């Protein structure tokens, strides 16, 4: 009797397990069948993106091509965490975030498709940011470490990087934490590149810390610290600064020489099915088309849309300060990308704490 009852229970459990397996199979069968059908059918393209205009772009792309897209819209940090944690069995098809150093790191791990370049005419900003192995595609450029200040409180802003370590700016300068803010590492690496190397760069940031450098997690809180008067100068991503200045007319954005390029890039998963890779290439080409650029410039007008275009024939939005007379620096993402973890750790240990 006991065994009979137990067997009955076991049968119930087995039946439930079977139902569960069926449910699982059901929830995954479409993906499996999609993969099995190969390149002929339109498979869902999984886009990992941290861009403010990505929803608008995905909608326009699907409308134009009929290709279904699944969008994981997240901050850069969690997206890269997902990619690294799932690299044995990746689920993404295309990554679209700011900062070429991360793409260089992914490329060095063999995670990106190489040798793809959309057939568009890149301008000088775009051409500088195409890697030799064409493992990722630049889609726009913002600037790392743009200086933002309140014109009613700061009448004589600094005009060089050397001046910001002066005593008149003690406790008045703020920037972001590179482990939480994607655009901040390129700023740190850019300063080190400009000053002649890691050692000189570390001395510069150590002097800034001694001068009371205020660190906030990301662009938003740093700009808030500026507008509430905790700091007088904020060094943030240019699009964040210009976006804030659109809402608060007292704010001014200036670029100290040299300012570092921060390209937004697209990379394609090397382990994705061929059909999905082909769709990802179509997506990248669409983004750089005239239609795609229109979407990029209108999808997030007070945020990520404030970028400098990388293809000929597209003008930046009027709110952006002109780059004429500004020295815009390119840093080698392969050289600086491989040092990102070590330099971020140094920054956290020696500048933040």
């Amino acid at each position: 009797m006991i065994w009979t009852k137990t067997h009955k229970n076991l049968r119930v459990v087995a039946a439930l397990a079977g139902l569960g397996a069926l449910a699982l199979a059901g929830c995954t069968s479409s993906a499996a069948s999609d993969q099995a059908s190969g390149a002929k059918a339109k498979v869902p393209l999984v886009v990992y993106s941290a861009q403010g205009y990505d929803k608008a772009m995905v909608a326009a792309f699907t409308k134009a091509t009929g290709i279904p897209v699944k969008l994981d819209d997240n901050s850069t940090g969690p997206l890269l965490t997902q990619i690294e944690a799932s690299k044995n069995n990746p689920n993404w098809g295309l990554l679209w975030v700011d900062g070429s150093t991360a793409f260089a790191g992914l490329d060095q791990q063999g995670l990106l498709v190489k040798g793809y370049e959309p057939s568009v005419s890149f301008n000088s900003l775009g051409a500088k940011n195409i890697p030799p192995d064409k493992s990722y595609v630049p889609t726009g450029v913002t600037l790392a470490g743009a200086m933002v200040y309140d014109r009613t409180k700061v009448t004589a802003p600094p005009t060089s990087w050397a001046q910001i370590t002066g005593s008149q700016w003690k406790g008045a300068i703020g920037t972001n934490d590179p482990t939480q803010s994607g655009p901040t590492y390129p700023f740190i690496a850019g300063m080190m590149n400009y000053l002649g190397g890691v050692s000189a760069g570390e001395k510069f940031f150590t002097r800034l810390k001694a001068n009371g450098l205020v660190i906030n997690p990301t662009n938003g809180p740093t700009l808030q610290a500026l507008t509430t008067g905790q700091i007088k100068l904020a060094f943030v991503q240019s699009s964040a600064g210009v976006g804030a200045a659109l809402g608060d007319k007292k704010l001014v954005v200036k670029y100290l020489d040299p300012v570092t390029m921060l390209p937004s890039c697209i990379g394609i998963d090397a382990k994705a099915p061929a059909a999905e890779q082909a769709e990802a290439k179509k997506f990248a080409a669409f983004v750089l088309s005239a239609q795609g650029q229109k979407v990029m410039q209108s999808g997030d007008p007070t945020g990520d849309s404030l970028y400098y275009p990388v293809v000929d024939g597209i003008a930046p939005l009027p709110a952006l300060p002109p780059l004429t007379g500004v020295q815009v620096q390119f840093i080698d993402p392969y050289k600086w990308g491989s040092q990102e973890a070590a330099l971020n750790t140094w920054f956290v240990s020696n500048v933040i704490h």
Partner: protein
Amino acid sequence: MTDQTDFAVRAPASPGRGQRRLAWPATAGSRLASARLGKTVFWLLLSFFILAPCASFLALAVAPRLFSQGAQWFTLSYLRQTFTGVTALAITNSLWVSCAAAAFGLAVGFPVAWLAARTSLPGRRLVAGGMWLVLLLPSWLPALGWQRLVQPDGVLYRIGLSSPFITHLIMGPFGVVLLLGLRSVPFTFLAVTAGLAGLGQEFEDAARVHGAGRLAALRLIMPILAPAIWSALAINFAESVSDFGVAATLAYSSNFPLGTYQLYAAINNFPPSFPAAAAMGWLLVAAVALPLALQARALRGRSYEVLSGRSRQVVRRQLTRPGTVVAVAGVGLFYLCALGVPGFGAVSGSLLGDLGGSFSLTLANYRAVFHEGGQFGPLARSLGYGTITATITVIGGFVAARFLAQRKTKATRLLDFMLLAAVALPSVVFGAGYIFAYNLPIMSTLGINLYQTVLLLVIAYVAASLPTNARVLVGAVSQLQPSLKDAARAHGAGELAAWARGVLPAVSRPIVMAWLLTFCGTFLELPLSQLLYAPNDPPASVSINDNLSTYHFGVGMAQSVLAVGIALAAVAVVLGGYRLLAPEGWRRIGGTVRG
């Protein structure tokens, strides 16, 4: 043991039921087998959905090559690193701050729970609702509110109440303990309220009849509430040690590193160092041994089964006028600190169009939320996720609490440690662990693609909520006497009906509380959602975080305010529904009468 006892109790069943009596041994035997099977299934589920992801992540600390996160099959270097530099400082800070916060939570939560449950405190019905609001707020929100108030050039400075002393006090270890402690109060409140609900008037009456004063009666009652008190302390400690919201905001701005922030920094770095984060995870897990050891030592060998069919309704104590004033002031001060300040921070942040540069108010951020497409989908989705998660979690949490409340064996001790260790691990550990454990290539080969599906996200929500849920329920469940169900069984009810008629009425209130606790915790949960959500279907927290961390701070704050409002409405619906729909007898248990 329990099943044998049940059998012994039921053996002398009422006469005239010969046939049924003949069936007793077989029925008891099959019940024993069912119970064993149930336990096996329970342990299997725990192993698959809590142990496996945590173990997958933690294993990386010593074997990073296991999931291609390094070259070594075995190394101790990452564990050694945690005892050096900023990481060691952060872990030490986390430990002492969590101890202090747990004590603070108990010191405030216990009197508030007692005042609300046992006295004539004016507005006592609002106290429980307020606690849900405290629980609903993600911990970063109070932190931002306090910062906005006391920071240099903050609100206090602008209205001429600048005080560097207060700024220094809040923007430092004291402020961190205060915020984590305030967040611990609802956990204490829930655990102690559940314990008080099962504590009938008879114990206090017995003490008073034998000449004990009020203080002596309290000394009698306190030990009976020991499971709830220790449970509260343990959960307060574990929740504080795993908190990220305060660690990433107030503690961060105060240059006071905490362990969870260091762990997140290791994962958010590029490339992320999962082994370093796992090594810190080991220390956080080891830390929960401290409250558990104390709890085990305090409760060893005692029984706390006081809730039976004979439990008497409690007489509500009438507070004197001065007592009322002090009690109202104390409870009011708590809510001012826990809700008033963060509420001010969130609402003001959502009404300022210029990132707080001026005091000019605008509804622009709310207009942006309403006019921007796709802002309400995430909110509706999170409501659904929260409802499903809370329902499953309460069932699992009740089962786990029953095991925890039973006689201590190696299995229950292991369960106890496992559940509390899971609470102590930050959610991001669960999230990354789920990717490692459930996105193995072999699973895709078998056609099982769970990663980035709603199914895995809900499973992860349940797994992350269940430990806290079980800890909150254990106080109430440990008070249940077997006689409650036995009585129903003796009157011919089947197993399920006996539970529904005998046990459910006694624990319905704690179960509703546990459901709401999980719902609130899931509704705005961020780290798991970020790593596991199904593309195209973002939950509310991901959508809000996108705005807060980038350019649209005000819009994000407006979304937060709306989300908290919607969740609060959901809580009101559930509590109102319970009041209207639950039988009067259910609500009577744990209720009071005027003294």
